[in-house]
């Protein structure tokens, strides 16, 4: 005894022991779990591929899923599918993490500790259905049943719509933030104003020679990005017309803008004014090869190119150059959408852009604008529409005033997705029974009494009429690629069993035993159709081919020429966009943009998507704010500085990305982070940009003007390094981390 151990000796011994313990042999042991009852024809070790439909966004791309031993292993694009031609985006690839997500609900639950308590107790499905049936039977007035759904699969929408109709309830409100930021409702109403059809127009990007995109981020998130990326590739490598020219008008350089020949960083809200000026120059100088423009001269009667040039900060000469570029080609194409629809003047701006296609006679022409050919069967004729903000505010008002007794929500997360001023959460508190069908406990499900989890899309049935479509009518078919992993139940099946329990007219209107039966019967409507890409002798054989192909489509392209029946009669005018917040107090325009990976936040619980870098900033795992280097210098802020972003309505904190691809008067924040619920990967991460949005200016009505907020920025004195792959160090050199 008595020999003391020095610190150094202690460390040596500790290090030695740690090394030695590392040398203890480890042998990998793998459990091989065989099937209990093997499916017939199943060959362990060999993959089976199932054709289905991606549901990570509403585009409806065809997928094939590699399944080994009954487990889904890999998702790829369906090479035969005429929309995405075998291609698939990062969100589609990450779909396995929806299926295998550790935060999925394993069974139906009741929130036993009261709403918001997050204390759940499992309940048997029979009890859940009994409760729902009893609640529906005791409803005083069917108008007190309300449903909100976020771009549901069309089969669910069809079943839901007939259920609500026969019960006597108002139609479901269809809303989710992803499609709202796309401007889906705006694009559909543009089509119904101009062409008399409430269907999304199809822009033939693949065959255009000069494309002007006004705000549509068509290679990242807008509408059908995979199909548009394929078409973009064809446009760039056109065999006959040479390389197409692409000009993107947007205040923030997106990956689409970066892929364009020219990025015109227009002031927010002036896209329509530019389109109008271009039209005026084309008509005035009689540009192009499409004949005389005298028919359309009246549209531009009141347009002053000089005023427009001043409003958008571009010289008149520059506008003339752009007008010549657009008009002096055989196949120009102008596309409105995306953040253009987030301004108070979006209706007029979209009209102004569409007018460019009309004066260049691009309707129904190769490389022009088309309307979709409907699927030749009654069951598929009316795909799910998209509601506008008026319908949502109306729903919120009815909930707030206590008119709603039962509220069902599927596939949307309005408490997270809608700006707080809409008051969705407060209104929901007034509803006696709230039922969510979410497979995850998201912000809205936390405010529900019961959660009856739906299958994820890789376990469930469905179909989707593709809209906006490609060159032909397409139905993307969805089928289970694996057995449900948990005790979940399809929402369509729940509605069908409710109908049979309610009996009478409801049961007669929805006679199907389950959704697969409904789908088989629906598919039979297309059996023996002359345009079908395949056919079988019997409806049963047809249904089998339907599942093998992953849906149904026409064997050849059918494009339909739209008629500009609703073209504006008088002179067009685009008013200046209105913004909320005084320019002195709030010097920056806020541009919230749909995250390429997380979309409107639904991807935030998938770590592959959190890890995938944003293509322009390479940032991930957090919320950031993009600021022009000039503005950053004037505020003395650098990369990774935390700043407080404040609007007239709310504030949040975010780390700075100094980004040269944005106007000095604009800042941009991606959507998708800042979840308070929605699983371990989504929570405690970043901030929700929707918290900043201010209500639309009163005179603009109930427009979802998500780009109409002004903000100010203050340094908070903290630095939080963002996880980025590379950054611009201010000297113009890129440094790889």
């Amino acid at each position, binding site marked *: 005894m008595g020999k003391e151990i020095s610190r150094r000796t202690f460390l040596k011994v500790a290090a030695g022991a740690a*090394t*030695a313990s590392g*040398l*203890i*042999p*480890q*042998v*990998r*042991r*793998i*459990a*091989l*779990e*065989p*099937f*209990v*009852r*093997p499916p017939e024809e199943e*060959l*362990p*070790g*060999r993959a089976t591929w199932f054709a289905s439909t991606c549901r990570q966004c509403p585009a409806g791309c065809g997928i094939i899923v590699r399944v080994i031993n009954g487990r889904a292993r890999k998702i790829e694009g369906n090479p035969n599918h005429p929309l995405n031609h075998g291609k698939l985006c990062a969100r589609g690839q990450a779909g396995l993490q929806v299926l295998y997500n550790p935060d999925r609900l394993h069974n139906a639950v009741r929130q036993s500790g009261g709403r918001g308590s997050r204390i759940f107790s499992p309940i048997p499905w029979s009890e859940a259905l009994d409760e729902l049936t009893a609640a529906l039977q005791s409803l005083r007035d069917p108008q007190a049943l309300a449903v909100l759904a976020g771009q549901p699969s069309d089969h669910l929408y069809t079943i839901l719509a007939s259920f609500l109709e026969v019960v006597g309830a108002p139609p479901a409100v269809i809303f989710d933030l992803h499609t709202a930021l796309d401007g889906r409702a705006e694009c559909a109403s543009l089509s119904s104003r101009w062409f008399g059809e409430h269907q999304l127009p199809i822009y033939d990007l693949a065959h255009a020679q000069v494309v002007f995109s006004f705000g549509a981020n068509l290679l990242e998130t807008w509408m059908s990005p995979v199909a548009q990326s394929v078409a973009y590739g064809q446009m760039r490598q056109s065999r006959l017309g040479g390389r197409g020219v692409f000009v993107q008008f947007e205040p923030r350089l997106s990956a689409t803008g970066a892929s364009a020949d020219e990025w015109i960083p227009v002031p927010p809200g002036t896209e329509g004014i530019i389109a109008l000026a271009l039209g005026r120059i084309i008509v005035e100088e009689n540009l192009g090869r499409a004949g005389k423009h005298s028919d359309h001269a009246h549209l531009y009667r009141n347009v002053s190119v000089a005023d427009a040039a001043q409003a958008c900060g571009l010289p008149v000469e520059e506008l003339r150059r752009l007008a010549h570029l657009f008009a002096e080609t055989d196949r120009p194409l102008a596309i409105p959408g995306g953040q253009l629809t987030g301004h108070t003047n979006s209706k007029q701006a979209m009209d102004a852009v569409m007018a460019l296609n009309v004066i260049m006679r691009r309707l129904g022409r190769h490389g022009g604008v088309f309307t979709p050919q409907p699927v030749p069967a009654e069951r598929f004729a009316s795909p799910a529409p998209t509601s506008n903000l008026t319908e949502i505010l109306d729903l919120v008002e009815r909930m707030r005033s206590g008119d709603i007794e039962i509220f069902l929500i599927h596939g949307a997360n309005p408490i997270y997705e809608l700006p707080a001023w809409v008051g969705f959460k407060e209104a929901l508190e007034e509803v006696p029974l709230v039922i969510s069908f979410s497979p995850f406990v998201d912000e809205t499900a936390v405010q529900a009494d019961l959660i009856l989890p739906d299958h994820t899309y890789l376990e469930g049935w469905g179909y989707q009429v593709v809209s906006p479509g490609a060159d032909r009518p397409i139905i993307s078919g969805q089928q289970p690629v694996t057995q449900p992993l948990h005790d979940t139940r399809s929402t369509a099946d729940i509605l069908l069993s409710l109908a049979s329990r309610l009996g009478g007219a409801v049961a007669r209107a929805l006679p199907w035993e389950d959704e697969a039966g409904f789908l088989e019967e629906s598919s039979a409507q297309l059996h023996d159709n002359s345009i079908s890409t395949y056919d079988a002798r019997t409806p049963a054989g047809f249904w089998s081919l339907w599942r093998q192909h992953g849906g149904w489509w026409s064997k050849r392209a059918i494009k339909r020429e739209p008629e500009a029946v609703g073209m504006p009669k008088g002179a067009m005018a685009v008013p200046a966009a209105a913004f909320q917040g005084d320019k002195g107090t709030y010097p920056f325009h806020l541009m919230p943009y749909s995250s390429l990976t997380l979309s409107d936040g639904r991807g935030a619980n998938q770590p592959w998507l959190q890890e995938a870098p944003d293509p322009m900033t390479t940032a991930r795992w957090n919320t950031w704010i993009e600021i022009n280097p000039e503005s950053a210098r004037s505020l003395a802020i650098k990369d990774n500085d935390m700043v407080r972003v404040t609007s007239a309505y709310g504030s949040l904190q975010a780390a700075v990305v100094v980004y040269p691809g944005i106007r000095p008067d604009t800042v941009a924040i991606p959507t998708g982070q800042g979840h308070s619920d929605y699983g371990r990967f989504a929570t405690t991460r970043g901030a929700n940009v929707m918290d900043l949005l201010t209500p639309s200016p009163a005179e603009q009505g109930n427009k979802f003007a998500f780009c109409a907020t002004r903000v100010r920025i203050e340094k908070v004195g903290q630095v939080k390094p963002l996880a980025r792959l590379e950054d611009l160090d201010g000297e113009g050199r890129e440094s790889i981390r």
Partner: protein
Amino acid sequence: MGQDRTRTVRSRILWPFLMIAILLMVVFAVLISRQIATAAPEQPIAFKHQVHAEAEVECLFCHPNALRSDIAGIPSVARCVGCHQTIANDSPNVKLVFDYWERNEPIPWQAVNNMPDFVFFSHQPHLGAGVTCETCHGNVGEMVVVKPIISMDMGWCLDCHLDQPQENVARLTDCLACHK
């Protein structure tokens, strides 16, 4: 000063010993891990290959996928139950199989031979070339508890691939034959 000097001398003597000790530990660890790698893993049910082989059950009766697929496969619980409904249904181990069957649960058998993930091994071409099961797995029919008898490293694979008819050697020793 004197003390410092002693310490230096002592550490000069100590260092080589320390290095030798570490080297011995590493060698020992490698040997032990080989030993463990070729040990029989503990199985959820004490399955006896020997008993089945003595009853003249062919390998391919329970592992038929070796003929058609990359992996030989573990028989499904249904296949075990198929025979054992009438044969040896009073054995305690067979009763355990029925427990799994009734719970509708797969039996978590432990893999005996593991190929690393970077090897794309397939049973089918090996059986097609006339390689017998025993060549790689040893005489399983005489083992009560099955264990790996060959460590299946790359040198062992190549020994056999090089020992083939001359016209096949180039193809069989190509890197991409096994590492895709």
